[in-house]
């Protein structure tokens, strides 16, 4: 024991001697910050986001910083034209020949100094058109046995169905014109896309350094020629590059510089597998809004666990956090010093659907309480919707996360969009939102009593089976609120927690289902698949001819006012038949280092980074 005392004393004495001599240096001080560290849930897997494997949030966010095109979505879901980069217009508009022309402003350059020209818009047709792919001998995207050589995610959909031939390059090679066989609504979303095609050629030729100006020009011509002449062999070579070469997770000085060429405000400078990607400003950037200049490094850091990410923010390891936070995480974030919390919404919205039939084309028959075949079906659906506790769900489950949350009055248009007010004024949603919930529940009970005379608030008898997606804490809480609330209107709801729920949506066992849709763009026809008879996402067997007619009418080019009129017509039918109601928009919480300015989270991809050029300290 003596030893221990003497040792301690010795340590103390010596510490005085040693450290006093060293003297007290200045305390640590933080340098002016010019770095933004952004949290992402998943790891970075590729610089090419166009394949089914790599079309992931992290990849699209990062490539958004390294490349910019003709337009982008802002935080109000409006499509903003990037006039610095170029312009676009309808150049011909007839019933069978519809053309759009896309022109790049002169002087725009890639980060390697090569000018951006019309040839750079020629890759799109190869990636988007099944007809082109088949004609060029590059495989048939719709045939499992003959897969497309370009492993592109973009085949199928409006562009693919209506595009004609190959886009034509103008004489000055600064614009291309795309031809369609009919007018296309939201045609401005179906542009040609811009990519540095000279680097694809360079990579295909095995180059490991950047091309000279003349080599680049030759490469561009070679690429455009290969596309317009349906040159199968050459295109296959390019396909290999496009499919595989961009899939890198580790980037350093040994990475082929041709992979990193872009026209965005930042360029990838390094990446550590599964950990982070670092970007530095692009000195030659002139394709979009001016950079604020306050940021000289952007780092994307991958953290899968939400709690871990918010603790990392409070420890100063990240500057920008976005996630589906819980109420507690939000109050924890709010309590942090130097952290600003913005409650917002993601593009997802939760909705409750009621079944009317089995899905078209299935052999099942739906004979449940809400069936069209049941004379009381429609009235009971209305009663169910009246009593559905949407406000209670929003106030207890959503508001603690996003205090601005409201119950949406439409499934076509969400609060915050410019036409939201117009739509809900006329779409008949008022029926389910006027008065108090108590009054609506009482009205619902009256309806139920008509068909189930012994029903009462204490004796719920009208049987409803509700599919509850599981495992999911928020959905469990929703179900826990729904069951007693609907019991007050005489409904005996059985909420069934279901794993693998999405594969079981068509099951006629369910009278009601609630889950979320997450649209990635704002289009006129975005919800058609959900409501059309036999639509791919119509899991409740809805089939109403007038509704189909209104939805079909949205499939043509028309003015905003005309679009709103069609939406109102469609929604009036949906509300009158009590098919579907939106419950809430999924909350998304953004929290960031308060010294960072101009962070404006947006609901649509690329949510947080859409205005990276404005960020500054």
């Amino acid at each position: 024991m003596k030893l221990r005392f003497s040792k301690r004393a010795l340590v103390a004495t010596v510490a005085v001697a040693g450290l006093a001599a060293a003297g007290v240096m200045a305390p640590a001080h933080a340098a002016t910050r010019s770095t933004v560290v952004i949290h992402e849930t998943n790891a970075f897997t590729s610089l090419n986001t166009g394949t089914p494997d790599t079309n992931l949030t992290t990849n699209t966010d990062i490539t958004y910083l390294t490349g910019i095109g003709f337009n982008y979505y802002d935080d109000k879901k409006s499509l903003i034209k990037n006039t610095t980069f170029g312009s676009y217009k309808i150049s011909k508009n007839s019933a069978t020949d519809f053309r759009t022309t896309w022109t790049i402003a002169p002087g725009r350059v890639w980060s390697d100094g090569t000018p951006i020209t019309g040839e750079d818009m020629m890759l799109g047709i190869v990636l988007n058109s099944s007809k082109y792919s088949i004609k060029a001998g590059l495989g048939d995207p719709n045939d499992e046995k003959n897969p497309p050589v370009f492993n592109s995610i973009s085949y199928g959909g409006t562009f693919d169905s209506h595009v004609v031939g190959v886009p034509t390059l103008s004489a000055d090679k600064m614009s291309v014109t795309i031809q369609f066989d009919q007018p296309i609504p939201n045609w401005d979303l179906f542009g040609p896309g811009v990519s540095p095609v000279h680097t694809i050629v360079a990579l295909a030729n095995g180059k490991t350094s950047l091309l000279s100006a003349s080599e680049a020009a030759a490469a561009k011509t070679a690429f455009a020629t290969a596309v317009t002449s349906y040159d199968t062999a050459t295109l296959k070579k390019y396909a290999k590059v496009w499919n595989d070469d961009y899939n890198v997770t580790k980037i350093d000085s040994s990475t082929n510089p041709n992979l990193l060429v872009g026209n965005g405000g930042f360029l990838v400078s390094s990446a550590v597998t599964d950990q982070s990607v670092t970007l530095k400003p692009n000195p030659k950037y002139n394709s979009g809004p001016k950079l604020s200049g306050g940021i000289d490094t952007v780092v994307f850091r991958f953290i899968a666990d939400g709690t871990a990410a918010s603790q990392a923010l409070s420890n100063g390891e990240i500057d920008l956090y976005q996630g589906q936070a819980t109420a507690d995480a939000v109050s924890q974030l709010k309590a942090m010093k130097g952290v600003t919390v913005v409650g917002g919404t993601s593009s997802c919205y939760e909705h409750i659907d009621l079944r009317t039939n089995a899905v078209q084309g299935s052999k099942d028959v739906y004979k449940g309480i809400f069936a069209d075949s049941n004379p009381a079906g429609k009235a009971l659906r209305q009663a169910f919707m009246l009593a559905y506790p949407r406000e209670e769900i929003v106030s207890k489950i959503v508001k603690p996360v996003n205090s601005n949350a409201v119950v949406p009055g439409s499934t076509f248009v969400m609060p915050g969009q410019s036409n939201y007010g117009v739509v809900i004024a006329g779409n008949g949603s008022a029926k389910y939102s006027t008065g108090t919930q108590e009054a609506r529940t009482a009205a619902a009970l009256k309806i139920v009593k008509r068909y189930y005379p012994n029903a009462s608030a204490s004796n719920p008898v009208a049987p409803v089976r509700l599919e509850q997606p599981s495992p999911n804490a928020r959905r469990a809480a929703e179900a826990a609120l729904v069951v007693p609330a609907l019991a007050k209107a005489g409904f005996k709801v059985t909420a069934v927690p279901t794993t693998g729920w999405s594969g079981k949506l068509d099951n006629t066992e369910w009278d009601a289902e609630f889950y979320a849709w997450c649209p990635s763009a704002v289009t006129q026809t975005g919800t058609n698949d959900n409501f059309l008879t036999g639509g791919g996402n119509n899991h409740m067997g809805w089939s109403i001819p007038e509704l189909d007619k209104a939805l079909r009418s949205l499939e043509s080019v028309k003015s905003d006012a005309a679009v709103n009129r069609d939406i109102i017509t469609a929604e009036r039918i949906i509300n009158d038949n009590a098919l579907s109601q939106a419950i809430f928009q999924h909350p998304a919480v953004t929290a960031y280092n308060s010294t960072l300015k101009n962070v404006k989270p947006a609901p649509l991809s690329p949510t947080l980074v859409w205005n990276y050029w404005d960020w500054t300290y």
Partner: protein
Amino acid sequence: MFAYIMRRLGVLFVILFGSSFILYNLAAISGDPLEGLRTSSEPSAKQQIITLTRELDLNVPPPVRYFLWLRGILGLFVGKLDFGNARNGQAVSTLVQHAIPVTIRLVTMATVVAIILGITVGIVTALRQYSRFDYAMTFVSFLMYSLPVFWVAVLLKQYLAIRFNTFLSNPNVPIGWNIVFSCVTGIFWAGVISGNRKRVSQIFFGVALGNAALLQLLSTLNWFTHPGLGPVVLFGAGIGVAYGVTQISVGINNKAALRASQTMALLALISYYPSQYLLKHSPHVSTLLLMLLFTLLLGAGVGRIFAKIDRGPIMRTSTLTGLVLAFLMLLDKLMQTWFPYLSTDAVNGRPVPTIGQMNALLDQSDFWMSTLDTLMHLVLPTIALTLISFAGYVRFTRGTLLDVLNADYIRTARAKGLTERTVIMRHAFRNTLIPLTTIIVVDFAGIIGGAIITESVFGWVGMGTLFRQAIGSFDLNLLMAVFFITASLSVLANLIADLLYSALDPRIRVGAGK
């Protein structure tokens, strides 16, 4: 013996084949890999379904698809092991190649710390069975064993990272904390050493006051932002180490060993500046290895000079002392890197990170900075993992040692008049190590399978994270790769454990009863 091993290996392959077949089929029917796409409103969803079906052979029934997978695995024998592609198109072998070193780095440190601490505490509690210290340690280890790891992680991050980093911006230990720390330290040492009431209170007050004074001193000197040992402290500590190591290794009465160890401390003092110079100007792993070799040679040499008889133990003692001192010197160098590390823009005055394996912003070209960075990122996960596996080792060591201490040969050893130290260190402890070794082997293999939760809460992408990812997204190839590696390791480890057990303990024959 050889035949036995070959037979076991043969059976091992059969087991792996059987369980992988069953698992593959079970996993294939455990969910729908296209689930997310089916409810997607994206226009490209149908396209993606076609692509994924093709890439993952989803139209082939699972029992047949298993053999497609097996073909890739059997490539092992021709040097072309192919685990297939993960859902996101990345080659599974690449993913696994990245994950294994991460898991090993994460787990090795924690396991080593847990084993050392666990065995030490286990021995002390066995020797002081039913003492207050024994009860306290039993309580503490069971308590740690009862804590969910993600819970521990949240608490550790809050207190050891966020709060500690904030403390560093104004590094003065508040008086309240100082009192608490000092009391806890006092209680701990009083418990370990124990004795009659007077002695216990003496120890308690002595240690607590010493500790309080030291903490106060360190905070006045800004030691927490400018740590370091310096040659004088190093020498002082060296003398202490010399006494300690000698006591444990051969007993303090062995004067030759004590002299040798003290000489090592003196040599450390002399070589302080030269070695600092070397570490600063030649920062490579090779330098460290050379210094290690030098220390070993020096230790052995000094031991040999002092030893008249019984050279082995004395050389061992002086070498051990040398190693501890070399470690302290290295620690000193890292401490000197602390302040520059703190002041970098990347660290921004907050050195204890809560996530990740490295700081992406830090310039990794400086050897000492990047070493310190790696170590700092290991701190929290290591503590968390150590806490949960600590209890097992403590209980096991305690139990085994108690069993051994009751054995006849221990009584014989005591009867021969050997000192208690010799009886415990040489006779009892060594026999305790036999079952411990086998347990450790099995543990290690199990742990490669990944600390699923620990990895994900600390943002490390190792085998556990891959496994969780695979299950979450029904990624069959990824899942099977993780399974194949962990299952092979665990079956192999059980075999090794069995062989080791029989090799260490001659009373047990493998394949007995034939």
